[in-house]
């Protein structure tokens, strides 16, 4: 490891999608400031490297819809915007959310109404229309669905590599293998301690997702996030079997055939307790493989490539937490378990806020202050 600088104008802790995006935008906005990004692990060491690779604007809370809507053009024009000609494998075949029963269909209807207020081109589908979009699915019990053609799937590794390269080019100093042990206020700035070394930073952005409380708890800053251990598995590459990404609440499942042909299955388990132990559990396959085959029968003959576990960052309203904490100069970037799809806009707008620029109202509402305000939270209903 090359030596760490002792001082930086802005320090970003965490080099996942959120940390890299915010660091990159900070330097783009303020090439005159030094930005240091510290990450305890290697490239894509935590949640971004474990995600299901899905993108959807079809949410049921305004904050989520807006973040995704604002991120979409960045993903559609990733090569130009981030100087990444290799491509991010964006398979923009849409995203189909299935309703098993009228109650779920009503929820989708309400979500679509909200989405259309922001100009999202999503629509309610009949079972027949859903079957035409995804002929391989078993739709028994399905009463309808919601669909948006601009949603889809894209490679988290490519996206992160693109952010990483663009950030380095923009002049962000990126250091992997550096675990930050604590952050403390220090005269009018902050002191970070990392493996015995001290770094002084004028402003700090903490982007360690579910691990944020470990760093901020001792400062008396309460960011309400809980880890929920989720699991996923992926098959060997298959011939095209599934165009759109598919969510089924009844199956507690998200299916995504990526541009490479592998099918990624994110299999939640509502009965699993919150906790930070993300190790895959032995009951994953009988439970989730059976459900996946029920949903997409062609998966029966598919061969497994590998499985893994990762942590969803559960917030009280299932929205991201982006903004300044009670300590001026100390910011958080917490994904609310959709950090891959929201990273472009979350990073750009948070960078503006850190720089003291105005941000849209809807973004300002994602601040951690919302939890202390006593106002009623707008909760996201469309989570698998």
């Amino acid at each position: 490891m090359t030596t760490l600088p002792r001082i930086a104008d802005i320090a970003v802790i965490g080099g996942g999608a959120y940390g890299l995006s915010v660091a990159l935008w900070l330097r783009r906005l303020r090439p005159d400031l030094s930005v240091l990004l510290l990450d305890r692990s290697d490239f894509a060491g935590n949640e971004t490297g474990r995600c299901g690779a899905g993108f959807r604007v079809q949410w049921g809370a305004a904050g989520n819809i807006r973040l995704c809507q604002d991120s979409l053009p960045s993903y559609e024009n990733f090569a130009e915007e981030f100087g990444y000609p290799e491509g991010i494998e964006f398979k923009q075949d849409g995203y189909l959310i299935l309703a098993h029963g009228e109650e779920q269909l009503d929820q989708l209807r309400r979500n679509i109404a909200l989405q259309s207020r922001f100009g999202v081109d999503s629509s309610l589908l009949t079972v027949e229309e859903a079957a035409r979009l995804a002929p391989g699915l078993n739709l028994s019990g399905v009463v309808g669905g919601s669909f948006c053609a601009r949603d889809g799937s894209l490679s988290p590794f490519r996206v992160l590599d693109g952010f990483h390269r663009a950030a380095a080019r923009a002049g962000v100093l990126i250091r992997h293998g550096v675990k930050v042990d604590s952050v403390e206020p220090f005269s009018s700035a902050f002191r970070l301690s990392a493996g015995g070394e001290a770094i002084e930073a004028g402003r700090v952005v903490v982007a360690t997702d579910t691990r944020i409380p470990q760093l901020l708890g001792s400062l008396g800053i309460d960011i309400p996030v809980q880890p929920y251990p989720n699991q996923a598995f992926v098959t060997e590459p298959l011939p095209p079997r599934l165009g759109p990404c598919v969510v089924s609440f009844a199956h507690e499942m998200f299916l995504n055939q990526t541009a490479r042909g592998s099918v990624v299955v994110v299999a939640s388990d509502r009965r699993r307790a919150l906790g930070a132990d993300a190790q895959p559990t032995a009951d994953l396959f009988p439970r989730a493989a059976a459900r996946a085959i029920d949903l997409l029968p062609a998966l029966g003959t598919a061969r497994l490539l590998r499985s893994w576990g990762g942590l969803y960052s559960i917030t009280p309203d299932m929205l991201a937490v982006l903004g300044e904490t009670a300590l001026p100069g100390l910011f958080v970037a917490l994904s609310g378990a959709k950090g891959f799809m929201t990273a472009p806009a979350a990073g750009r707008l948070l960078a503006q806020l850190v720089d003291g620029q105005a941000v849209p109202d809807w973004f300002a509402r994602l601040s951690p202050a919302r939890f202390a305000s006593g106002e009623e939270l707008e909760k996201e209903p469309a989570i698998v």
Partner: protein
Amino acid sequence: MSRARVVVVGAGPAGMMAAAQAARLGCAVVLVDEAPRPGGQIHRQPPPSLAGGAVSAAARPEAERKRRLFDRFARHAGAIDHRPGTSVTAIYGLDRILIADETSSRLIRADALVVATGLHERVVPVPGWTLPGVVTAGALQALLKGGRVRAGDRIALAGAGPLPLVAAAQMVEAGATVPVVALLRPPWSPLWPGLLRDPAALWAGRGVLSEGWRWLSVLRRAGVPVLTRHVALSVSGDGAAERLVIARHDGRGRPVPGTERRFAADTVAFNHGFTANSELARMAGAETRFDPRRGGWLPVRDGDGATSVPGLFVAGDAGGFAGGLAAACDGAVVGAAAAGWALHRDAGRFAAQAAADRAERARHWTFQAALAASWELPRDIHELVTPATVVCRCEGVTRARIDRAVADGHDGLNGLKRNTRAGMGSCGGRSCLRTLAALAGPRGEGEAVNARPGIRPVTLAALANRVSDESVGS
């Protein structure tokens, strides 16, 4: 309460002996093996319909070893629940080992687990290595032993260690023409200094040496040129392998200009040593260390095969290359230790019962330690991997892409893998991770890649169809 149970993964010489030993000592034994019949890599058996046939003089010692091994196994086979055609694909703990065949899967419990999964071949990728007709030396053998198939008519071989020589001789006996065997170093020269100092090891290795001598004689009689200190530069051809280009190297693996030679061949076989199948041990949490000669990331184990995880043992070549004879002895030693642990939580309990195997193993180990030097690859060997050469064939990742990632600072193996996708494909990194580690620089070999549940390509239908454990091992 049910009987103490030892689960053994892999029915090669090590696993067969471990299973037999644990059964002899009174444990319930489950022997899980992917192959349809026992024997492992070295004694791979053809299906019964293809069995039989004459054994050549050179092949006789191996056939004799095989007979002794199978005899010893047969004595206890009645007490072993052998599950062929079944793979262990995940370990969630010794009490939750996931095994699967083509139609079903189950979780089984072990009081002691012996991982005897052997190793797989390593190949240094040179331009053209992904052409049809390019295989590993072991694949030549596997086709011949397992299916009585000769991979080609004109077969050129290149690489390190003795395997290319043995495979070449076997191909000659099977009727192929072998235009050349090109080796990085003479496999015999590093042997002598060590062996002459240790007569016991020389004695233990006499069988292997005389066998090697016989294989060399087969090559000599057939007029096959064996060129040592030569390096493979490329394979070329129109849509398939047609020729192998080699050159002398300068001792570090760099070709000496003007010494190139080309050999026409319809099949080219490489072997640059081995990589231990240590994923299961790593998934169970065993510590590893890197050993470039004996198989890469090896589980750290003591003389009983015990790893850093209580109850988890490693036997045979999965712990590092030492050859089939050592593997059988090691299996007998580790089987006794696993039985001691399963029955009494004391791996040393039956040590006396395995004393003879332990002593014989020591002699094989000394001999093999001398031989291991022939697998040491010259320092600059990876200079031959050109920027456009595909390193990870599953994901189509070139050397240029890997170099770029390393230059971007992703020089730890796990980060490099995630950044490039090299090693993420269907083969689980078997064919490229060693190259990736070598290209990564000093940090590359320091860490093994994470081993995640699902190491074998089992169908989702089989994983979904989980049956209960009750019938196992009783």
